């Protein structure tokens, strides 16, 4: 019984890690730019598809892992420069609608380019096997994700809290006008932040590719999940994205195991609970 609980926890944390990568991008974009990127799930999905494409061309997963997030990051940057930039001074709802429009475009584009069916990607041989965890077989790839998540988290933390660039981004996230008056080139910063957020989403997608079937509906589900994670953690909060994602993943996994009938509702119950009792989330600022 104990082993099952630990295995279930591992499953949850694995999901949490993927969510963390995506939510991190989402929350950074919101924190710095004030934009809630509805198309973020589609960017994640594109990361998976790019990885698939790279596998087809180069037959190398690691290359795919390198190339896919870059491609998605560049696409995000293009969207920011060409479209998003034009409506920064407009109402929040218009920004939401614009990113939602891109969700529609990207989701359909994927269907047109790769077909409506689903595809599969094999994990690289190095990570394809199973290991014994507490006497039970457990996929090596899931463990890889589990290790990678906190590693990326650590790297990001070091970036944001220990480098100059990172501090500038955090300053801009807290107070855009002040940062601008201190000489920060805010428009350029926005572009880089959007690139960074999209890159993270693409990385999440590329990592998820060997785990799940790749299909056009991938983006829809994960965007809602990442919204919830970001709200639970606190909009714009970096540690919030990490903790929120882990909480979400654990609740999801234990939910399936113990209360399968209502497990679907758990994320929304969490969302409502947080919003009603502590709207700023676990680590967010006072609103």
């Amino acid at each position, binding site marked *: 019984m104990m082993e099952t609980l630990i295995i279930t926890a591992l499953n949850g944390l694995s999901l949490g890690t993927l969510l963390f990568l995506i939510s991190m991008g989402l929350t950074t974009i919101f924190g710095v730019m004030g934009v809630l990127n509805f198309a973020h799930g589609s960017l994640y999905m594109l990361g998976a598809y790019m990885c698939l494409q790279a596998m087809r061309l180069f037959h190398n997963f690691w290359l795919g892992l390198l190339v896919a997030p870059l491609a998605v990051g560049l696409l995000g940057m293009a969207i920011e420069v060409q479209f998003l930039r034009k409506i920064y001074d407009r109402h929040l709802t218009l920004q939401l609608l614009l990113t939602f429009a891109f969700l529609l475009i990207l989701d359909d584009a994927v269907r047109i380019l790769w077909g409506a069916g*689903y595809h599969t990607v094999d994990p690289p041989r190095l990570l394809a096997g199973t290991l014994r965890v507490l006497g039970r077989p457990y996929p090596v790839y899931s463990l890889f994700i589990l290790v990678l998540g906190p590693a990326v988290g650590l790297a990001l933390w070091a970036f944001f809290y220990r480098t100059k660039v990172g501090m500038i981004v955090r300053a801009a996230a807290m107070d855009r006008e002040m940062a601008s008056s201190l000489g920060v080139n805010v428009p350029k910063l926005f572009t880089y932040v959007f690139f960074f957020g999209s890159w993270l989403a693409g990385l999440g997608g590329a990592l998820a590719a060997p785990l799940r079937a790749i299909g*056009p*509906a*991938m983006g829809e589900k994960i965007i809602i999940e990442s919204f919830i994670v970001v709200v639970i953690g606190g909009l714009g909060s970096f540690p919030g994205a990490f903790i929120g994602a882990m909480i979400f993943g654990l609740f999801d*996994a234990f939910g399936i*195991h113990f209360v399968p009938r209502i497990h679907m509702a758990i994320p929304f119950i969490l969302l409502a609970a947080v919003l009603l009792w502590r709207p700023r989330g676990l680590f967010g600022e006072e609103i």
Partner: protein
Amino acid sequence: MKGKGVLSVFILVIFGVFVLGMPQGAVAKKPLKIGAVYILSGAFATYGQFARNGINLAVDEINAKGGILGRKVEVTFEDSKAKPAVAIRAFRKLVYEEKVDFLVGLDSSGVALGVVPTLPELKRILIITHAATPDVTGKKCNKYAFRISVNLNQNVGAGARIAAKTGAKRWTTIGPDYAFGHQSWEYFQKYLKKLVPDAVFMEKVAFPKLATEDYSTYITSIMDANPEGVFISLWGGDLVNFVRQANAYGFFKKGYKVLMSLGAATEVLYALKDKMPEGVWVGTRYWFLANPSPTNKRFVEAYKKRYNAYPSYNAQNAYTAIYALKAAIEKAKSTKTEAVIKALEGLRIEAPVGKIYIRPQDHQAILNVTWGKTAADPNYPIRILKPMVTFSGEEVTPSPEETGCKMK
């Protein structure tokens, strides 16, 4: 002078347009239109694709031989997206805008349950080639709905017989969370209990949503409950996903007696190749190697030549549906719905899957059901069934009274 010349050219042109524009004689008849609704996108898109393959093959063969009653056959496809509401709109579009004469379709049992009650309004025959819920030829039957394919009752009936011989007594299930998954389990329990009175059905079962991406916790949860037998009704993309993920957790090395009611679908076997474990009992609604008849051999060859793959059951079923329509229309010598309904009832045809008899009381086809154990074979790129067990339709089909169909 010039004016006269222009006028004559003008008249000639008008005349020419008229002649060319006229229908090519009285021999050319209006084409016979069939509307087909399948899942064409998402995790189950290959099913729709294969149905399309089967239909196109049948239609081209039939048109090459002069069509049906001298009329060319045309098919329009619509995507149900596995959603009943979308399918209803698609059917309305086909009947009211495209003005089709007949309907074939439906992969999803959920969709079938939504659509079949609307058939009396649409006043068109629908031949179901895939959706397996017993209700559409049972509790919710009506005279417009026909099913040419093996239904859930028949497939699970055969499966229960297989399960009875495995010796496993504690059973659980993993199935999709909609009509098909729940009904498969319901009927499996019913039929197995009759054959193995001391069979035990566990509390812990798994019904992940259709198109679930991550099965890991369902897998570990079921394994934790230590079943002896596992009855899996997942299908299509879900089954592929599940098997890949379950392999990683050692699910198939624990000695469970595993049955997959739709594991022998060629799309699943192609997608998994050697990741499909050997020694699993799998069912299907048509196995391309099961029937040695010349009809089947011809079909398999033609299909393989055109599509470079062995035909799946969805392709065969859709192919057969078109031929069944042809036979019924020719028997009735009419394309009027009422006449064709009467012709379809009691129809006997020879299909690739074997002999089919459409039972008049509930419009369900009675035909052979094949199950088998997965095995590797160097002659084929996919797992094949060795041994194969074929049950006759009469053996596994419940009587019309049992189905609860009261045809009005």
